C-alpha cells in the first residue's frame, strides 16, 4: 500500500499529484513531460518534494509537515531506470549483488538463483555491462533491483529505450515478475498497450496533475 500526496514547483512546471497504490501493479500513465519520472524520483527519495507526504506500507518516508525525509538509501525501494544504469566497472554478477551488499543482507544463494533463472540471465553473469544488448541490460537491472529485496518496485519506462522486437522479448519477463513475486509495483509508461497488459490500476497524469485514476479499462477508448 502506497500513498502519495506531493507538490513541487520545477521551474515553470507545477507538479501536484495525489494517488494511492495497492498491491499489484499501478501504472503512472501519461504523455512525456507530464511529470511521471519526477513522481517516481520523489517516491525513491532522489528528488525532494516541495510539500506533501509519501507513505509506504504504513511507514512515512516523507512528510514536509513533520520534517521527515528518509534518505533514498534507507527506503528499500527497487528502482529500474529507463537507461538501466548498470555500474560499468563491475561484472553483471557484482551488479546483481550490489544492493544486497550495501544493505547488509546475508547472502541468499537460493534467491539469487531464483531471480537469475526468472530473468534468464545466468549466461550473462561473468560479462561486463558494456558487452550486453539493451534488453539484456534491462533484465540485469531488474534482477539487481529485485535482489535487494525491496518492498516496492519502481519501473520507470523500462522498455522505452528498446525497439519493438526487443520490447516483445522483455515484456514476458515483467509479466513473470508480476505473477511470481507479488511485489507492489509502480510502472511508468506512455504506452497504452504495455499498461493494459501489465497493470491492474492506472493513474492518468497530464501537465503535472492527476486527470483520473481507476482500472485499465480507462485506456480502452
Amino acid at each position, binding site marked *: 500500500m502506497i500513498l502519495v500526496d506531493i507538490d513541487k514547483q520545477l521551474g515553470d512546471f507545477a507538479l501536484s499529484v495525489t494517488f494511492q497504490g495497492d498491491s499489484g501493479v499501478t501504472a503512472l500513465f501519461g504523455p512525456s513531460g507530464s511529470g511521471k519520472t519526477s513522481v517516481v524520483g520523489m517516491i525513491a527519495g532522489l528528488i525532494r518534494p516541495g510539500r506533501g507526504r509519501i507513505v509506504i506500507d504504513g511507514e512515512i518516508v516523507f512528510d514536509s509537515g513533520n520534517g521527515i525525509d528518509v*534518505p533514498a538509501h534507507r527506503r528499500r525501494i527497487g*528502482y529500474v531506470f529507463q537507461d538501466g544504469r548498470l*555500474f*560499468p566497472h563491475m561484472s553483471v554478477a557484482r551488479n546483481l549483488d550490489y544492493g544486497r551488499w550495501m*544493505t*547488509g543482507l546475508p547472502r541468499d544463494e537460493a534467491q539469487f538463483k531464483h531471480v537469475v533463472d526468472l530473468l534468464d540471465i545466468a549466461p550473462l553473469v561473468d560479462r561486463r555491462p558494456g558487452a550486453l544488448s539493451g534488453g539484456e541490460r534491462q533484465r540485469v537491472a531488474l534482477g539487481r533491483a529485485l535482489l535487494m529485496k525491496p518492498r516496492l518496485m519502481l519501473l520507470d519506462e523500462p522498455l522505452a529505450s528498446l525497439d519493438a522486437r526487443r520490447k516483445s522479448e522483455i515484456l514476458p519477463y515483467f509479466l513473470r515478475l508480476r505473477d511470481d513475486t507479488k511485489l507492489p509495483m509502480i510502472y511508468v509508461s506512455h504506452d497504452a498497450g504495455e499498461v493494459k497488459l501489465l497493470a491492474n490500476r492506472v493513474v492518468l497524469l497530464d501537465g503535472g496533475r492527476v486527470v483520473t485514476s481507476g482500472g485499465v479499462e480507462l485506456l480502452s477508448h
Partner: protein
Amino acid sequence: MFDLSPEEWTAVALSLRVAAVATAFSLPLGIAVAWLLARKNFPGKALLNAIIYLPLVLPPVVTGYLLLIAFGRRGIFGAWLESIGIVLSFRWTGAAVACAVMSFPLLVGAIRLSIEAVDRKLEDAAATLGANRAWTFATVTLPLALPGIIAGAVLAFARALGEFGATITFVSNIPGETQTISAAIYTLTQVPGGDSQALKLVVIAVAISLLALIVSEWFGRRAGARIHGV
C-alpha cells in the same frame, strides 16, 4: 651512460623523493577538494577555486615568499609546527610543501574533471540500492574516476619534479637537503664550465617528465574505456 657526480645523483634522488612525498600527501586533500568542487554548491566556492588556482598564476617567487612568511621558523604556522617538532624551512620537507602547493592546481583540475565525468545517475542508482554517500563514493565514483585520479597524480608528480622558483625562495638551495634537479641545474649554469654537467641533468629532467606525461595520457585514455564498461 650518465657519469654524474654523487652530488648530482643526490639531487636526482632528492627530486624524486620530494615530488613523491608532495604528491602522496596532497592526493587525499586533492580528491576531497575536487569532489567538493565537482559535486557541491556552497558559499565561497568561487573563492576556494580561485585560491587553489592562485599558485598557477602567481610568480613562483611570490608563492615561495608567502610560504616563507607562513611556514618559516618565525612564521604563523612555522612557529607552531616547530613546537610539535616539524621544521620546514631549509629542509627537504619544506621543498615538498612548496612542490605540493605549486602542483595542487593541476592535481585538483584533473581529478575534478574525472569526477565530473562520472554519471551522477549512477550515483542515484547506487543510492536506491542502499548505498549511503560514503559507500557510493567508494564503490562507484572513486573507481570510475580512478584512471583520471592517477593521471592527475602523475601530472602533479611531474610538475613537482620541475618546481624551482617557490622551492628556492622558501628553502634555498642546499646540496643534499633542498637542492633538487632544477636547483642543481641552476647552480651548474652559474659556474664556469658547468654547462656539460647541467646538460646531463637536463636530459634526465626531460626524460622523467616525458615519461610521466605518457603515463598520465595512458591512464586518461583508460578512464574513457572504463566508463564505457567494456
